């Protein structure tokens, strides 16, 4: 449960806006191992804030589901996704808990409920802190392009149980800025998220963080 929340909330946080990537970016054989370290180094953040727009292409639905809002990252508190449309919803992810506030309804789910959820919980703090080793325990990591220009990090689940939920997660960026993420679920559904108006580290105030995580 909650996989999409973690992916949508946390991966969004690692992406920053930029121009469109080349169409053939994610092709060929990716680089692996220590070759991806320089890219990870660019993703290391203390805080971040960005606007997001998201489209979910779900085969069950005739039209894609669209949403938008603001996402916050704090290396101590975790990630908060404040959705403003089509309806208000606040999702916060800490190291231990996922909390969803929708209207008056509040749902809390412990993230350590299963090893798959824990793997996801570790992905995004690890990604944003540049910790490749932690991610490598649950995902095959591949790098397309180079950190000097456009790049794409692909995460492919290693465990069968994770594979039943998610086929791949791809984070696309340019130099130091992640700009887009794409989640492909085992069902074939795809979620694409773009980030704009990115503010990093000291540009994000204590008040912003306090408001986002309240």
């Amino acid at each position, binding site marked *: 449960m909650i*996989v*999409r*929340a973690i992916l949508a909330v946390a991966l969004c946080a690692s992406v920053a806006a930029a121009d469109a990537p080349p169409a053939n970016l994610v092709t060929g054989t990716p680089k692996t191992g220590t070759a991806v370290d320089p890219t990870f180094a660019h993703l290391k953040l203390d805080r971040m804030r960005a606007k997001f727009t998201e489209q979910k292409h*779900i085969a*069950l639905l005739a039209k894609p*589901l669209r949403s938008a809002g603001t996402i916050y990252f704090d290396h101590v508190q975790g990630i908060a996704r404040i959705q403003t449309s089509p309806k208000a919803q606040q999702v916060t992810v800490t190291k231990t808990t996922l909390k969803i506030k929708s209207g008056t309804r509040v749902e809390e789910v412990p993230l350590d409920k*299963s090893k798959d959820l824990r793997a996801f919980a570790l992905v995004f703090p690890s990604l944003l802190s540049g910790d490749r080793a932690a991610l490598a325990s649950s995902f095959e990591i591949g790098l397309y392009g180079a950190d000097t220009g456009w790049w794409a990090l692909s995460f492919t689940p290693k465990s069968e149980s994770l594979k039943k939920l998610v086929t791949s997660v791809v984070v696309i960026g340019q130099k130091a800025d992640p700009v887009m993420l794409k989640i492909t679920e085992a069902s074939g559904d795809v979620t694409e998220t773009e980030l704009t108006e990115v503010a990093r580290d000291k540009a994000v105030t204590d008040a912003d963080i306090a408001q986002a995580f309240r």
Partner: protein
Amino acid sequence: MRRAASVVVLALTAIVFALALPHLRFTTQITEFLPDTGDRTARLAALLADSELSKVMIVELAGAHPSASARALIADLKTAPDIAMVRSGFTDDDLDAMRKFIDALAPTTFLPESEYTPARMRARLASLRDHLAGPEGVLMRQTAPRDPLGGIWDVLDALRSTRAGGLVDTDGVLTTEDGLHAFVFLETKSSPFDSNAQRAFRGVLDRWREAHPDAVVRTAGAAQYAIASEDQIKGDVNRIGIISTIGILAIFLVLFGSVRMILISFVPMTFGSAMAVLGTQAIFGQIHGITIAFGTSLLGVGLDYVEHYYAHFVLTPEVPAQTTMRHVGPSLALGAVTTIIGFIGLGASGLGGLRQMAVFAVIAIVASMAATYFMVPAWMPARYKPPRTLGLVNRGVLVLLRGLTRHHWGRIARAAIVVITAGSIALAVRNIAFSDNVNMLVDDSGPHVVEDRAVRALLGPDADAFAVVTASSDDALATAIASACGELERARTGQLVGSFVPLASLLPDRATQLRRHDVAVAAAPALREALAAEDFVADQFAPYWSALAAPPKVLTLADLRASPLAPVAGAWFPAPQVALIPLTGIRALAPLQAAVPSATIVIPSQTIVEAFHGVRVRTVVASLLGLVAIFALLFARYRSAKKVMIALAPALLACAATVGALVAMGTGLTILHVMSLLLVVSLGVDFGIFFVDTTDSLEEAARTMVSIFTASITTILSFGLLGLSHSPGLAALGITVTLGVTFSLLACLLLAALAGSKLVGR
């Protein structure tokens, strides 16, 4: 000739006992002391005591890494002998198996018919769309094609609502929210009341603990009560056995002055005990620890016959041993028969444990009486010089009797004594407070109890009560559960109960499942319209349409029991055709019971109390009937109401005085006190019979009083020590019988005083 016969009998008994010894089975199972009279309350009490709720042991792990310790313990115990089940929370594999099981059922299984209206279907589909967009969308996405209306989530929510609050399932390990305590649940193949098996398992656990010094391990469950109970009983038996043996030896040595007679005196009770053990094992297949403890104390009673005989033999050494036995034998036999009648009453109490004790006692008494009559005289010394001590005691008693009988009590004085006695009895009876809240085998201050409570407290509050639903078949049970849950829901709305486990949501009855399927088939066109209206693509739900086209697979109780949900559902279905619906927050029992006629509302502690109330009443009735039988027996023997009353007087007076003393001590009388009073009556009647039968002269009356005195001392030595037991049951037995025997002795003296010069030659 008799010597040779007795040697043969004793040798044969010893051989049989030695052969049987490896096959003797001992138990401390508490259910033996639960009523088994077959009435509904008794059955419910037994059901609760023997349900999974009592079979599962809880192991709490704290220390440096509780979750890791729990995983290590589970891994190690899975290969340990005698382990039937060991788990903590639910692993991903468990959850996957549960999901697959539920997925294989008809998608209409759990969704109420009322949800198939156009408005409700659209509301559910709108909710599905929201969820697909939200964090839980990935999981919803997996189930939605086969279950667009989300019936499966309703049942999973119902299951989740049953889990104890404040606990977290961390990747298959259940912990407290702070993660400082992890829990492992296990069940052994052996009964939790099989103390030998549980002791062996404790050894496994102790070795694991030694190998994992970082882990702090505590446990809760019936097994530790069984072990502690056995340890306690063994300790009591050893202490009572050793001290009472030493005490009895000392008394015999002082009074009878013959090692040979001491050795002979032990023959009847050893023989009686051996026969009782063999007989009990043969009849019941096992012997309860309490029976053994009780039997140890019975040694003192078995000695009474020998003592009475010795007193007369020793104080008239010129009379041949066989002649003395022929003289006192009828009194001994009568005493034994009246005691047996008393124990038959005990057997009618309705408790398996007490029935076993009664059988044990009857066999022990018959055997020891037979040994006393047939074996003892043959081995008595031909030339015997009584010690001065017995002569001194005898003379002292003679002087006492002379003093007591010198005074002639007038009619008025005697009437006054009778009135005072009757008034005292009435006062005592009026102030009797009965308690059926017995805690017979448990010393509730013991460390095993403290640890049990501490571990359970960490797991959160238990259910206050249960709605017990029964039926004649699994299908009928599911129907009855549906009725009961409907009534409970109305009771919850009426605030008669805080919450209950919605078993009907988890196991709808067959007719309901079929009806739901039919309603879903009929609603299919409307569902297609609703799907389109909510922007869904109806053809993407092919698995659902296929399921509607196929005959529905009905979920049965048998399916549930064999499913991955069994670890969750097992506790709710403890026996065939029985369901327990846990309840919390009961405001008042009577209105709730009235509101839920389809089930019996049971508060476990109250049910046990009610069951024991019934047992106590039956025991009192059986005791009164026993008393009538004893009266009839004595009347047949004496043909004199006056003699019968004299024979019964010590018992009745002692019984009344004992009750008075217990009331004065503020003790609530339990079933064990009632049972002990039965023993007091039996012993007191023995004294009364000796008193009536062997008082032809003042000298003989003195000898009889000496025998009663020594019998009282030896009995008190046994039962008095039982009174020091930490087991509330044994302590109640000991204190009551000690008081009763003491009062019986005093009553004999009072009778002697009242009889005056008429004491002898009646």
